[in-house]
């Protein structure tokens, strides 16, 4: 009985904070509201028995990435010369296409074919589902090459960020 209650709570907080991210004036508040979204999603991940991913979500997203965001927000110190919403007709088009995407996504999810292939009842899970051990085992066997490529990607990102932020190139 607890699960629907927690789901309602976390999803309510997530949607509320997400709306705040998009429509709040102050960039710092936007970043903090995004932390709210990420934390409530971590809660939902735990409901889905993905404990390790939830921990990663808190540490990597809510921790590392958001700190980076906050640093840049404070570094740039943009003083409200950016209008809140894009001016003119582009705003109407933006909302229209977003509505179109929502309708399309809900159509896909709700249509009879949307859940095709997925078991109608959630299957029982092995005891170690979502544990670091199970994830690590998959990561270092089936997904070894993608994992190694990811490490190269991160290295390239580090070098790229340093080069871009260096003053003398620009």
């Amino acid at each position: 009985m607890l699960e629907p209650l927690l789901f309602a709570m976390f999803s309510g907080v997530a949607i509320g904070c997400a709306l705040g991210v998009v429509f709040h004036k102050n960039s710092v508040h936007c970043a903090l509201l995004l932390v709210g979204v990420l934390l409530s999603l971590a809660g939902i991940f735990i409901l889905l028995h993905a404990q390790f991913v939830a921990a990663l979500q808190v540490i990597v997203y809510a921790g590392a990435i958001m700190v980076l965001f906050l640093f840049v927000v404070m570094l740039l110190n943009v003083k409200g010369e950016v209008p809140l919403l894009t001016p003119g007709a582009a705003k109407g088009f933006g909302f229209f296409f977003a509505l179109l995407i929502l309708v399309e996504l809900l159509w896909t999810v709700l249509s009879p074919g949307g859940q095709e292939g997925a078991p109608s009842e959630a299957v029982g899970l092995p005891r170690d589902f979502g544990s670091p051990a199970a994830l690590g085992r998959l990561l270092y066997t089936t997904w070894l090459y993608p994992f190694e490529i990811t490490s190269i990607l991160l290295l390239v990102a580090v070098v790229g960020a340093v080069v871009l932020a260096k003053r003398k190139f620009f």
Partner: protein
Amino acid sequence: MIGLQTVPLLWYQILAAVLFTIGVVGVLVRRSALIIFMSIELMLNAVNLSLIAFSRQHGDMDGHIIVFFVMAVAAAEVSVGLAILVAIFRNRETANVDDVHLLKG
């Protein structure tokens, strides 16, 4: 064997769809490059939620692995993107994406 699920998969998918749409709204109607970045993170997270929910439904952990990779790519994307943003701000004193139109001719 653990935990039978009481919240159906559909609800998680609907939540993911709504969060993704809010992210799309952010990208389309805000002009601050920082907020656009945050909205992109929002969309990535919505997709992550969808993957985790399907993973739970199938009892298969491959979805968790994909989420792991999405997080790694998001971290790389954010670090490079924010570095670009800092470079743009240093040169043009703006974070408004409409003011960056050098290629417009």
